[in-house]
């Protein structure tokens, strides 16, 4: 049964990447959108652009993984294709994990492009590569799970887009991408601590700055917890509809 689940997961992810993700508008939007925001911020606040690179990567991952993920499931539910997957001999968590995997793979691919551009343009080389890779993987899992949860929580595609933006845009400004957490009022810092982007930015900053693993431990743990809880909630919500 586990072999069936793993096989199903892989094929669902591959099918999603082929059918939905790797389309020119998605790729260009996934790359351009975070750059546009960072550049807009940099023009307004000229300074050390290199410091923005971890935030840029986190933003790219957030939008790359969750944008399509948040609508794929609800879209497939509308056209009946989700039912087709639910009829297959695969358990529900594996089915949803396949969806997550597709979102993660696309988000990581787009982020890799942005990382290479950042390396070439800004010359910023991460000091701790293993930490960077782990931080990117856990961030992708957390953001993809967020997208999946949004997608199963609603019944219409436009509702999914609205809810995803309602969550992501405040997160973008509170997650420490543009403004360091320390310079925020205390209550805003508390709110920021409830957002997965905050931990993603911090973990990536630690990887670029070459800080120790123990410094980033809390961030990595928080990202893993976000991924697990949001994934669990998504599975539960989908199962309840049966």
């Amino acid at each position, binding site marked *: 049964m586990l072999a069936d689940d793993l096989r199903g997961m892989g094929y669902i992810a591959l099918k999603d990447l082929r*059918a*939905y993700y790797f389309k020119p508008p998605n790729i260009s939007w996934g790359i351009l959108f975070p750059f546009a925001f960072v550049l807009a911020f940099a023009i307004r606040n000229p300074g050390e652009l290199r410091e923005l690179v971890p935030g840029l990567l986190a933003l790219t991952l957030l939008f790359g993984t969750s944008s399509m993920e948040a609508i794929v499931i609800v879209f497939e539910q509308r*056209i009946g294709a989700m039912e087709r997957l639910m009829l297959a001999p695969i358990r529900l968590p594996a089915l949803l994990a396949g969806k997550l995997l597709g979102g993660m793979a696309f988000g990581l691919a787009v982020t890799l492009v942005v990382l290479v551009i950042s390396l070439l343009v800004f010359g910023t080389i991460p000091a701790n590569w293993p930490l960077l890779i782990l931080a990117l993987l856990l961030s992708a899992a957390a953001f993809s799970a967020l997208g999946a949860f949004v997608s199963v929580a609603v019944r219409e595609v436009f509702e999914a887009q609205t809810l995803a933006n309602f969550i992501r845009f405040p997160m973008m400004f509170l997650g420490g991408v543009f403004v360091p957490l320390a310079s925020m009022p205390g209550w805003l810092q508390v709110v920021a601590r409830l957002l997965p982007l905050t931990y993603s930015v911090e973990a990536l900053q630690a990887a670029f700055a070459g800080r120790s693993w123990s410094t980033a431990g809390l961030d990595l743990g928080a990202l893993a917890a976000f991924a697990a809880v949001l994934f669990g909630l998504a599975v539960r919500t989908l199962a309840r509809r049966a």
Partner: protein
Amino acid sequence: MTEAIHVTGLTKIYPAAKGRPPVRAVDGIDFTVREGEVFGFLGPNGAGKTTTIRMLTGLTRPTAGHARVLGFDLATEVTRIKKHIGVVPETSNLYDELSAFDNLVFSMQLYGVPRAERKPRAEELLARFGLSEKRDVPFAQLSRGMKRALTIAAALAHRPSLLFLDEPTTGLDVMSARHLRGMIADLRREGVTVFLTTHYLEEAGRLCDRIAIIVRGHIVALDTVDGLKAQASGRPTVEITVAGEEGRTETLRLEGDDVEATLRKALAQAGGRRVLAVNTLRPTLEDVFVRLTGLSAEVMLMEKGRGGSDARG
């Protein structure tokens, strides 16, 4: 004969929502489907047909009751059941972006068909359903009939031993519908058990070995087509058409237990007029349906047109 499906007391109650009371969509039904037969499940819109299919295929959890599908317990072995069944929903639901060939391959990937078998099986199914020329055409660009055929092909790709067909010919043109009926008859010959819901009584009469009629969540009749007809009227009807005045014709109908005696009585009533035709009438499946549901076939089809997408149907 082995049972493909055995259902006892199967019930589905949808909870109250948005001010509406709970809906008892399926209410304690019992039936069996024999291995290798085409089993028809008929009923008006909202009778519980689709809900029953959804429960038997693991898409909806029953509120009460038990079911065994292909020998597996629905409550505890649903994943094993899924491995051996194929489902064709009322609306074709393959992936618009994938080609006909890729849709079939993806179906096989999900069901664990070995890699070496996928390509030849996909080609075989495309040929069988007359879609070889559309092999690389995206699903979105196929005609309605072709989409339906490909959806059935995808459901058969992993060689299921039980196939659920929910309104397979709804919305198809005459030729496509006829072609699909031929395919269903072929499946029966191959030993595949078919669970068929349809609004077309003639289609059910022609294809099904046995038929269950469900009304408001209850099965009100279950028998062979002939058995159902016999239930509708135990007495044959003799109809004679005689020449009337001024070139008109007149039809006389008489019911009786003995056909010969009834015919003699009818001829006597004709009073020596010239007999143009003599027929023995047997009840049609529509007569049975009307008697059991209180709905005419036309009303059922009209209802279908209005609420065909009702998932609780």
